[in-house]
């Protein structure tokens, strides 16, 4: 017993760490089945009602819709802009390279509250009211750096010989990019887009500063947390969790299959 424990201590420890990681998620999922009534703070019995009517709580689906819209638009813009920068950094030599790297790094090292407060102060100075588009602008801003870092890593792992081989095999610069470079970098771009979306969807602090009266899903949770969040929010959170897990696991399964047979 003692031998087994000392040999597997690290595995036991890892298992406990996973338990810690999943406690709040299990809790969130369990309470999505709570027959909550007015307060979702304590267990009041099992029901499917919340899952059958996820928009049942006032505002919750409106908030979710806003979050999805903001996430979608921000992801699209940030992925395009960030990928362009990543290609410039990963595939070109130019003056001012280290300044660009610094400019990419700084937003990631700046606390969110500073990012949110400074943007709002500027919008107010310019007489722009916070709301949907200021929130999109803010989300694109903090997502760009993460996209650049993710895509750049993928480009760096690409063997430059592959592009040389393409040009050696009669592909022009444009064809080389389209037929070889882009397809090989694509998984990185896709991963960066997923990351950007989840950062945007999950953001509260910067959104709270720049969205004015617009409610996003995290804002909805924050505001309603005082009274206990409605179980419908748990339903939505659980659904997002299962969906994201399914996407990632399917992606892994497909890439495993591709590499095998």
């Amino acid at each position: 017993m003692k031998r087994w424990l000392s040999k597997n201590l690290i595995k036991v420890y890892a298992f406990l760490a996973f338990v810690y990681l999943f406690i709040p998620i299990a809790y969130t999922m369990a309470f999505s089945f709570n027959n909550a009534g007015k307060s979702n703070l304590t267990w009041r019995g099992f029901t499917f009602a919340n899952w059958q009517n996820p928009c049942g709580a006032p505002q919750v689906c409106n908030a979710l819709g806003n979050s999805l819209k903001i996430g979608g638009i921000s992801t699209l813009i940030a992925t395009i802009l960030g990928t362009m920068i990543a290609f410039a950094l990963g595939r070109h030599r130019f003056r001012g390279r280290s300044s660009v790297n610094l400019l990419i790094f700084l937003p990631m090292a700046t606390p969110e509250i500073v990012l949110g407060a400074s943007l709002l102060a500027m919008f107010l100075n310019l007489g722009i009211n916070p709301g949907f588009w200021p929130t999109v602008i803010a989300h694109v801003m903090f997502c760009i750096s993460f996209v650049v870092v993710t895509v750049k890593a993928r480009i760096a792992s690409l063997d430059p010989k592959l592009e040389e081989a393409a040009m050696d095999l009669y592909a022009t610069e444009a064809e080389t990019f389209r037929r070889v470079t882009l397809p090989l970098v694509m998984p990185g771009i896709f991963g960066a887009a997923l990351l950007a979306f989840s950062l945007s969807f999950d953001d509260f602090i910067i959104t709270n500063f720049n969205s004015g009266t617009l409610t996003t899903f995290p804002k909805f949770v924050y505001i309603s947390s005082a009274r206990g969040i409605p179980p419908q929010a748990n339903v939505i959170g659980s659904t997002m969790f299962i969906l994201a897990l399914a996407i990632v696991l399917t992606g892994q399964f497909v890439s495993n299959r591709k590499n095998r047979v």
Partner: protein
Amino acid sequence: MVDAAASTKGDLNLTNLVKEFGDFRAVDDLSLLIPEGSFFALLGPSGCGKTTTLRMIAGLEEPTSGKIAIGPTDITYAKPYARPVNTVFQNYALFPHLTIFENVAFGLRRRGIKDVKEQVTKVLELVELGHLAGRKPVQLSGGQQQRIAVARAIVNRPALLLLDEPLGALDLKLRRQMQIELKWIQTEVGLTFVHVTHDQEEAMTMADTIAVMNEGRIEQMGTPVELYESPRTVFVANFLGQSNLVKGKVEGTSGDDLLVSVHGNRIIVPANRDFAADNHENSVLIGIRPEKISLEHAEENTLGGGIITDISFVGVSTQFQVQMPWGQELAVFEQNDGGASHLQKGDTVSLSWKPQFTFALDGTADVDAGTSVNPDEE
């Protein structure tokens, strides 16, 4: 044009080629004519400029100055995709996202060729991998990837096929097999092959002509036999196989022979193997390959008083280290035909060989040139 007149349609002609990276001169005033249809090897240690030369021919590197032409066509500044040259890359550079078929078809499709399927199938048959057309590169073994890399290049029927250390990633046995296969493919398709390698044995097995490169220049060019039997520089003598080089003083001539005094012994060098003719007033280096020396039979050239310091048995031959009276260690390889089997460590022996095997090199050169470079280094 003189160049065009001198070369036939598909010869590769490099004229005064120079490539500098900052202060570093990788290729130094290189001129070379590679005849159409030949299997040509650029041999040298890493950093000698052979890969840079190859990349300039492929169009992946722009020369600092000089000219590259195939037949009458100047391609010095042509884009890589605009020249009839294809490369088999080191580690192959197969496109990981494309099937084997699409890898091989890549060049044909870019050039807008019609019968892609037919040509790809044919070349895959040639390398005997037709059954793998639907696979991805990661699913192939090293040897198979290597053949696909060759197929992907030769399917385009380039005027020139460049091979950049194509066998470096394979194990020894597979490498030997691929050497023979590549040579066979070359005769089969009749293309000009320019092969870059640091492996002298590989170069000698495959190429009709070898250019030995060192520090951006060509040391010597010729057939494998010429280079091995008559090395003209210390670098070539040491880099290709092994040589015993001993300092001596020219005493005079006798008929067609050069007479050299080596630590009191008279050594005869045939005049046509005297590669130090313009520098006789200084010392010369006389050279002899270890397998040409006999410890049993007396020949005209003899160095006496050597003591055997080490014996190693390597199957087909036995290798002796012999310390000469002046301190230098010389190598002797004896065939294992029973003749020298009684010799033991500590025995005193005389080293004898026929004068026709001797060569003389410039005595001012560094005796160790070409030995310190590790030929297996990447």
